């Protein structure tokens, strides 16, 4: 019996169904006190649903939840808070125009005669900050904080409420490698102080680096719990996907043909500063090769891709696509020859309120197959969307009628990639193509991109993940402060060398050959 009390949280034999579809089937998850316990599963496997049940957002159909050995009933988020369970959400829930301190105390304010007592809160928070190494300027407004600092504010929010079960839902998806390292250290500090942590992530190396135990679920079923020390990436991915997964990308040497995209001396203005976001960038992408842009985010990659796809005006320079000058062309004109997997899928890639069918037709609804005299052909659209879902293994409970907002991020991404690659354009532009998707899907996406290359497509990828850049690219361009700092061959370079270029510590002179 004593053994039971070592568990901070136990979720026993949890069942949950939506619209007669079982999403959790007899799941058991036990969190020991003072451990970091990772929860691993494919997109849509039920991790988020399980955590939402723990957080009182959904109610389980069957099963039992115990906190410190006692059975509890969690009906809403307030119940969870009362049980000292806190969650850092994937998308931050902060008020932009409030200071960090105001955000942290929001909802748990100490007041006297109706006035905020910030001094008390400040004292407590300063203690927490120094204890856990959570550097945050408490008086800075959220809108002026970078992503890493915002996340630390979210963590402080949980600690301020004296939570001792902390849920981190894909916290590293939005962080740079340096920030990720910091976060992992913070998690270790929290653990050392006796907090119990549930860590959800798709990045196996992070899970292995920081967790004590890992529970794997697959399609709503419990697969197993393993100690991090006794396992490795390959084993975990197989448990998760249910088959052997190729973590390495298999590809032959590229056999480039004619240039598809030629960019000459491109300059784009920045929305934020006087300096140009993209400054005199020249390169080309040929049919049958993958060119990858590496760089710390915010160094002009976004603006470069937006300019190429027509979302951002060009200040000067020239863009040639399939030999045509498209510098000033509209998005629609450009998309006749390119497909675009956007950086921010919820902003550009999908319409959250629309169902899958409408989302899958976004780029094609004007084609004659899907419209007649200005009226949409619903059946043709549904049939087309069903095909994309099938071919790309998109998990959705309601088929083509599933509303985008109800789908997991990874499945949204799979749908977007399916849609874009199906456009069959000579140039494929993909920005962060595997952001937030699980290993099984990463394998699929990488395979598709290489396949497209072998079919003679020109592929341009921007990615923040160096390992992805190294695996996929035939050529690497490193961007730093809006310029191409280095042009590298992945077979001849190292992570360290790319890192130097990314940080601006190393820079090549401009070459006369503008395109290579």
């Amino acid at each position: 019996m004593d053994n039971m009390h070592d568990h901070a949280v136990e979720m026993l034999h949890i069942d949950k169904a939506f619209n007669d579809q079982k999403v959790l089937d007899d799941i058991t998850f036990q969190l020991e006190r003072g451990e970091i316990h990772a929860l691993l599963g494919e997109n849509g496997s039920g991790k988020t649903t399980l955590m939402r049940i723990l957080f009182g957002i959904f109610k389980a159909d069957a099963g039992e939840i115990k906190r410190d050995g006692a059975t509890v009933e969690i009906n809403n988020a307030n119940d969870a808070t009362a049980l000292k369970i806190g969650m850092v959400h994937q998308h931050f829930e902060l008020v932009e125009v409030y200071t960090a301190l105001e955000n942290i105390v929001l909802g748990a304010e100490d007041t006297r005669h109706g006035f905020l007592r910030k001094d008390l809160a400040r004292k407590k928070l300063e203690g927490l900050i120094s204890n856990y190494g959570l550097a945050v300027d408490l008086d800075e407004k959220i809108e002026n904080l970078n992503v890493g600092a915002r996340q630390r504010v979210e963590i402080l929010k949980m600690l301020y409420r004296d939570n001792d079960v902390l849920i981190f839902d894909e916290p590293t998806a939005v962080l740079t490698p340096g920030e990720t390292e910091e976060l992992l250290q913070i998690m270790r500090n929290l653990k050392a102080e006796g907090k119990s942590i549930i860590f959800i992530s798709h990045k196996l190396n992070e899970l292995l680096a920081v967790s004590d135990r890992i529970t794997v679920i697959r399609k709503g079923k419990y697969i197993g719990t393993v100690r991090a020390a006794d396992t490795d990436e390959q084993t975990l991915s197989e448990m998760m996907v249910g088959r052997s997964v190729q973590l390495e990308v298999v590809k032959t040497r590229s056999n480039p043909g004619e240039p598809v995209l030629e960019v000459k001396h491109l300059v784009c203005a920045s929305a934020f500063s006087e300096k140009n976001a993209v400054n005199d960038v020249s390169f080309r992408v040929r049919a049958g090769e993958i060119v990858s842009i590496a760089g710390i985010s915010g160094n002009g990659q976004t603006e470069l891709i937006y300019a190429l796809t027509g979302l951002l005006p060009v200040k000067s320079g020239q863009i040639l696509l399939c030999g045509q000058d498209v510098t000033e062309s509209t998005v629609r004109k450009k998309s006749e020859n390119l497909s675009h997997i956007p950086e921010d899928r919820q902003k550009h890639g999908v319409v959250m309120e629309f169902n899958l069918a409408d989302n899958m037709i976004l780029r094609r609804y004007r084609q004659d197959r899907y419209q007649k005299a200005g009226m949409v052909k619903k059946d043709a659209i549904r049939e087309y969307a069903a095909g994309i879902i099938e071919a790309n293994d998109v998990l959705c409970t309601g088929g083509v009628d599933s509303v985008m907002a109800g789908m997991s991020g990874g499945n949204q991404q799979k749908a977007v990639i399916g849609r874009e690659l199906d456009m069959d354009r000579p140039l494929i532009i993909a920005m962060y193509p595997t952001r937030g998707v699980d290993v099984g899907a990463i394998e699929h996406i990488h395979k598709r991109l290489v396949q497209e290359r072998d079919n003679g497509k020109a592929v341009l990828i921007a990615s923040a993940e160096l390992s992805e850049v190294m695996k996929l690219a035939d050529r690497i361009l490193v961007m730093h402060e809006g310029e191409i700092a280095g042009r590298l061959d992945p077979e001849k370079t190292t992570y360290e060398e790319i890192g130097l270029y990314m940080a601006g510590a190393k820079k090549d002179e401009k070459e006369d050959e503008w395109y290579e």
Partner: protein
Amino acid sequence: MNKNRNRFLYSTVPSLIAILAGLVFGAILMLIVCLMDKNITLGGFWDGARLLIIGFLSKGRDELGNLMFGYNGTHLGNMLFKATPLIMTGLSVAAAFKAGLFNIGAPGQYLMGLTASIVIALAIPSASVPAGLILVLALLGGMVAGAVWGMIPGALKAYLNVNEVITCILTNWIAANLSTLIFEGSAFINNTEPGKSGFLYKTAANGVELPKALLDKVFPGSQVNSGIIIAVILAVIMYFVISKSICGFEMRLCGSNREAARYCGINENANIIMSMAIAGALAGIGAALYTLSGNTEFAWSTYQKLPQVGFNGIPVALLGCLNPIGVIFTGMFMSALEINGQQIANLTAYNEYITSIIIGVIVYLSAFTKYIRGVMMHRRKKGGTKK
């Protein structure tokens, strides 16, 4: 099938709850007034409460003083007549909502449509031009004037990112003043009939009026004409435009996610202006249909007030779940309430303000339909599947 039924329930039930709550509130209010006012007996309250719900079926009182109910062509016809402009402004608001825009400018668009169609209907002499042609021109004129008035906030939103609510309110008042400016001292003012100088001539004075289309036979003694048929046809057309056409798809796309619309190659600025033009055109047609009945008089000095029918388009659209077909019914419901109010004032000791309050409450509650729907869906989700 199950899915469609659910969608239907989720959209209609919240509106019915809002309407029912408004009526219950009205009945309670009437009861309180009854208890406080010595002139109103409990029997009077019972009469009032019945009239509140089915006043449009009232046939006055019999010799014993009891209320009589039954088919009343005058009331029903007038209900349809008054529903005509409400359906159109409701469609106007609903179309803009689908494109992510809040068209609170319907009163201004309505007023500009009204002004344009009256000017055309009265200025072109029917002696030299066929009245039918003038009628068509006046309808088109109302539509175009409304569309132009809608485009102004649309263009400001698209190119300068000014919130359309602010510009709509401003353009409403510009319309109110502009209309007065146009008519003041003009030859359209009815100076021939004594005491009518505050009004313009009826368009029937120039022989311009919408055909009755036999509706006067079905609803004798009422003002109803073919305008209601046109409004219903336009609502059906709008249904197909919004939910089945490429144009509507692009409108909804822009309304849901402007950035995604850009990504798809849509010129989102042009789309916003077009959406507001469509919304304005619908309100303008509504005004034209109302005034071209030939029998309505327009109090031209509008610079201090905006037409209520424009604002009422908002609750009509919301209660109708922004669905053009739903708007047909909610437009008729709102005008039925107005008829009921008149009956209460005519046949009981209550005054007509009580219905104004009840309409106000229903308007207020219409804003909660989305919330009610949210609660319904949440309850279902929480409960999971029940077998």
